[in-house]
């Protein structure tokens, strides 16, 4: 065996990166062991303890990097050294290769680019979006905290250039079969969608996909598009674009309740539209829609059913994905006396809204961190009161981290808290699948679900966990596998958000009666 130490003067890398590289080197052919670290005296002792010290190590100071290798031959050691250099260069060049200092530079390098995805901090997003539009690109903007006047400016500019300004605060779009943002992959088809409702649009998309239909395009407009100030610019542009689109036969609009002035403008556009339009404005005024002869719906399930039926011209029976044969009485019989409340911890903002609407209609009070009724707003978003639904994707919980559908840490923490509350009987979780989302959300939650169910059981309580999977069989996370992982830990799987809310209401109602 040969031991060599290579010293890189004044070299700094983060520890996790160094750990990964050391592991890769140690697994290479001909290498017995490898260790990489800064040349501090204690690290040198560790390298010595591992039997990886060589003469060269004495030349390293605390600010120098030591690459220590033990291999079958000098040539193997050299190969390890080259591999280290290659991995380090790969790390810096993969950051640099497709990086440009400006949108103008990027467009010059990729002249065919017709979409800019912007997620810089809000105060810079306006300038970047403007540059993108001026360079004849459509814009998809994740960024929030953009001044509303700037949003109007951007949308008018986009419109004048025949481009789309999707956002600010846009979570997903699906254009020409391409999933953009946090979006599921679905079949192409004849149903067009537009609106400000990431998880709502996704719910409808996957429902139509599951039932053999497809989506032509789903255009995200951003959360404030239907406000008085913005006036539905993107919504109106989207309706017209979908009307003109050859592939689109029927259109669905999904959004939070619009400002009256914007609603009236959109109504006029819908009435002129030559294709059927189904409107689903969560918690909106459906009477005005009915008075204008506009088809409306009140749940995402209903929206999906209506657009499918309009697309094919006959009744559609929604396909069941999961057997819903829950023995509610059996579930209730296992609750301890203290257990009486429902706690939903949802990644999807629109799914949270739909749950609120259904609960309020059928059960009464439901607290939330995003409550429609201000009297039901949680004073402390980290602490539930009675029956509560939490939009865990809200910035309050994710500050400094990626959205909870990408990094589930915030939800894991909240789940534990709710599971340990002796008054919690039912917990409902939604799982969002799609590109750019967490690779395996079910596994992350399954581990903690199993632990907390066991803990509850030891304490004489039973946790009833309900879940939905808002995704398709084309998503990278493998829908069936996600479902099985959850079933294996005793989670009750339900097809849709509204069905989950109904099941939860049934259980809580019967618990109250008992």
């Amino acid at each position, binding site marked *: 065996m040969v031991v060599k130490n290579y010293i890189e003067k004044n070299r700094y890398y983060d*520890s996790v990166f*160094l*750990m990964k590289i050391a592991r890769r080197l140690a697994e290479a052919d001909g290498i017995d062991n490898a260790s990489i670290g800064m040349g501090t005296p204690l690290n040198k002792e560790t390298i010595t303890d591992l039997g990886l010290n060589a003469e060269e190590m004495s030349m390293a100071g605390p600010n120098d990097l030591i690459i220590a290798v033990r291999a079958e031959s000098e040539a193997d050691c050299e190969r390890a050294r080259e591999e280290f250099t290659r991995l380090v260069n790969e790390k810096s060049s993969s950051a640099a290769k497709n990086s440009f200092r400006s949108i103008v530079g990027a467009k010059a390098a990729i002249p065919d680019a017709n979409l800019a995805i912007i997620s810089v901090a809000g105060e810079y997003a306006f300038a970047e979006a403007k540059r993108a539009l001026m360079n004849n690109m459509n814009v998809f903007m994740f960024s929030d905290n953009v001044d509303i006047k700037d949003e109007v400016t951007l949308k008018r500019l986009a419109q004048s250039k025949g481009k789309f300004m999707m956002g600010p605060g846009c979570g997903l779009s699906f254009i020409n079969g391409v999933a953009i943002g946090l979006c599921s992959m679905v079949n192409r088809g004849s149903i067009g969608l537009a609106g400000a409702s990431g998880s709502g649009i996704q719910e409808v998309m996957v429902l139509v996909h599951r039932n053999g239909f497809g989506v032509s395009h789903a255009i995200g407009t951003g959360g404030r598009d239907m406000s008085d100030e913005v006036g539905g610019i993107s919504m109106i542009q989207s309706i017209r674009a979908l009307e003109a689109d050859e592939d689109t036969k029927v259109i669905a609009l999904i959004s939070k309740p619009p400002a009256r002035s914007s609603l009236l403008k959109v109504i006029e556009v819908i009435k002129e539209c030559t294709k059927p339009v189904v409107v689903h404005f969560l918690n909106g005024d459906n009477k005005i829609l009915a008075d204008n002869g506009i088809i409306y719906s009140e749940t995402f399930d209903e929206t999906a059913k209506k657009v499918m039926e309009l697309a094919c011209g006959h009744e559609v029976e929604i396909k069941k994905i999961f057997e819903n044969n829950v023995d509610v009485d059996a579930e209730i019989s296992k609750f301890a006396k203290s257990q009486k409340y429902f706690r939903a911890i949802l990644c999807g903002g629109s799914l949270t809204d739909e749950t609120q609407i259904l609960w309020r209609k059928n059960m009464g009070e439901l607290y939330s961190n995003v409550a429609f009724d201000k009297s039901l707003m949680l004073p402390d978003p980290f602490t539930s009161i009675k029956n509560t639904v939490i939009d865990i994707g809200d910035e309050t919980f994710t500050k*400094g981290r990626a959205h909870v559908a990408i990094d589930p840490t915030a939800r894991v*923490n909240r789940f534990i808290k709710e599971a340990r509350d002796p008054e919690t009987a039912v917990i409902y979780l939604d799982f969002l699948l799609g590109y750019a989302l967490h690779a395996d959300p079910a596994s992350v939650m399954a581990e903690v679900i199993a632990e907390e169910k066991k803990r509850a059981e030891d304490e004489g309580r039973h946790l009833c966990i309900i879940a939905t999977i808002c995704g398709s069989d084309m998503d990278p996370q493998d829908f069936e596998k996600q479902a099985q992982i959850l079933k294996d830990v005793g989670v009750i799987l339900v097809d849709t958000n509204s069905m989950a809310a109904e099941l939860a209401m049934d259980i809580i109602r019967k618990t109250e009666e008992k």
Partner: protein
Amino acid sequence: MNFKITHICEPIYNLRWKSGKVVGVYDRCFNVLTDTGQLITLFKKSDKFSTRAILTDIDCNISLLEFADGAEALCDGRSITVGDITFYLSNAEKIITRRAPVALTPKYEDGILLFADVLKRSRKKSPVFENGILKERVKRGFEILKDDLVGGFESLIGLGIGLTPSCDDMLSGMSALFHLTDTGQVFNRALAEFLQDKGDLVTTLVSKSLLADVACGHINETLYSVIRSIIEGKDDIEKNALELIEVGSSSGSETCEGILMGYKFLKDKEQIRWL
């Protein structure tokens, strides 16, 4: 390209230097080692920064600027220049980083329990917990620390593979907790002296500078917020803890471990000579 310096942290506010070298370029910041042997770190616009920070109005990714490790940095009192890039120094505000102790509240114990829970769930992978040999050394080092501060520092400072060795980050958390709970003054005095005498020999420059700052009561906002919310039993413990855990690749988690270690020391103070 020209940028403005908007804020300078207290420990380096009155620093005078003429030349230096870039020692580490990252997405949000880059380090300069000055001719006077001091570390300064120039940050892009940010609300999270170290006690060695000079905040600028750069809004792009710093690693895209055209200079690299080893580049010369010059300071003439009015500006700092690195390659073609100049940072102008007029009217920069001072960021106060020296913190006063925080009065303990009855909610402190619950705060620590909640913090420990959050850390258990959310901690990032760290070499000192993944590697068997390192783990043993760390355990031994903290045992030695209970009886012998200098011996403990010698067994811990510089142990860990990255830019800020893991044990330095743990001691940082511990030091900050002692300072903010107004306990362990002996610990912090000894730490400051140890670093002054031997810091350059036993650990990286970056780590020595940051640890020395904490030992003297200069604590960055992220770390301060966590400990203050624990001591006061506030509702934002979880939020602040998660922010600290996000710092660096594993430094934040290790600093959190240090806070917990400090708490354990305080609980066992009868067994610890210097507490």
